[in-house]
């Protein structure tokens, strides 16, 4: 099965990190991604720019409404994702728990719909 690991965290934590802490986090992510690749489970993965860069679009009837910011203002915001292949939920959860940000943020694990 394929699972999307959605990485949520408080953006302030990242913004308030020292240079050294940020570099450490980058290194941790690099190592984690490498581990996914080596295990042959990595399908895709990206980091997102902060929610200050987000724009939300809704179409209601014939009207398109464009608003500034993410679709919902929450303390923890979506900051990135991995798409992985795993035989079951437990395996996916195991990978989710290893994501460096899991230590202070939250990882939502969602199975991918198969048509």
């Amino acid at each position, binding site marked *: *099965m394929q*699972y999307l690991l959605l990485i949520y965290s408080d953006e302030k934590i990242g913004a308030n990190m020292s240079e050294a802490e940020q570099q450490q986090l980058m290194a941790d992510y690099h190592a984690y991604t490498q581990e996914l690749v080596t295990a042959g489970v990595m399908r895709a993965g990206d980091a997102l720019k902060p929610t200050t860069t987000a724009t939300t679009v809704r179409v209601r009837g014939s009207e398109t409404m464009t608003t500034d910011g993410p679709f919902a203002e929450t303390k923890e915001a979506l900051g990135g994702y991995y798409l992985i292949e795993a*035989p*079951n*939920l*437990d395996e*996916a959860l195991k990978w989710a728990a290893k994501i460096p940000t899991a230590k202070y943020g939250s990882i939502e694990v969602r*199975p991918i719909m198969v048509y």
Partner: protein
Amino acid sequence: MSQTALAVERVFREESGRVIAGLIRLTRAGASRHGEDPFQVAEDLFQEALTRALDRWPVEGVPDNPAAWITRVARNAAIDRMRRWSSRERSLAELRDASSEPPQPVEADASDVDVFPDDRLRLFFTCCHPALPQPASVALTLRTLGGLTTAEIAKAFLVSEATLAQRLVRAKRKIAEAGIPYRVPPAELLPERLKAVLSVVYLIFNEGYLATSGDQLMRGQLCEEALRLGSVLVELLEGGSVGDSAHESRRHRAEALGLVALMRLTHARRAARVDSSGSLVRLNAQDRSRWDGIAIQRGLEELDRALSLRAAGPYQIQAAIAALHVRASTPDETDWPQIAGLYAALLHFARDGATEQATPIIELNRAVAIWKADGPERALPLVQRLADSGRLANYHMLYATLGHLTRALGRLDDAKEAFERALELTDNSSERRFLEGQIMELTNGVAGGEP
């Protein structure tokens, strides 16, 4: 009830879990490939076999081993079902898959029931997976591993049958769609997962034991069912080597046994716990001759077995506390110093997050034990500190305890104030009567001792 109906009911109550778990193993892969819910397929096959028994036994007589008969019929129906699936998709791959299932003699031997004892253990872990909401785990565990019908479970939990059925459907759907595995978890996940299983079993027990509303008979049945599920779990953990080391596996068994002992020793007091008007009777006022001596004996033996594994845990500690209470033939003979020590140990586990019991409740219980063991002077500061922290601000027992302690130390105004606060916080009629009596005495200037 006819002999047939009795025998069928008995198989349903006692063998559901075993048969359904086995059927799920057999048909799971096929059901998933054909977009069917493996739980439903297994339940339907079992139901078919029960119906067949109701038809045939009045004519042919009840077989010597009714459970084996029904298991065999259900298994044969499962094999038929798998053949139908296979012929529907005549692909080579399908046939290969079918032949890799465990051997399927059409006239399966009765001993087949026990060939895969791990079936039920796997099912426990699937039903109690932390990715499912706990109420769903409770319902699913009772439905698939226990011998309760959907209607009975709904009645016990005071929800409509439709609501409960919906809860079951959602849980089964999540198992299928999120890919919750059907297996005994690997060693690194086991401590977390077993804790989830034990807490579901304990929740079933407490639902039956603590709630005072609802059908009394149904509630008693929940307690019995929780005890049975707990015992099955112990048996399964003892049968297989679960965990990655002898020590880990001992630790798991010890806690499962500790939970069973805790439930058994608690349940043993049930008859004395409610008076003829239906009000709760506090432990020190219970008629101890009405406690169930056989259950106590059994619970104490189970606790001894757990403790002999030398791997302490929160359920064993709570069982040990329950044991000290039931061992005392009068409240005065209770070994309070040891109970205080056990609460301190429990507190240690609670701070590590190893038990779901809230830390302040354990602190309060420890303070009560210290009061009984060493007197009110030593207990009062502990209770006062809890009250000042505001962590149990809505718990009437905190203020009732504060009332008793301050009164014993002659601080009558403080005592009255505390009892009044407690009275505001409880709806329980027997508690209220008791507290009103205390307030009345204090208002009339009577300084009594302990209740």
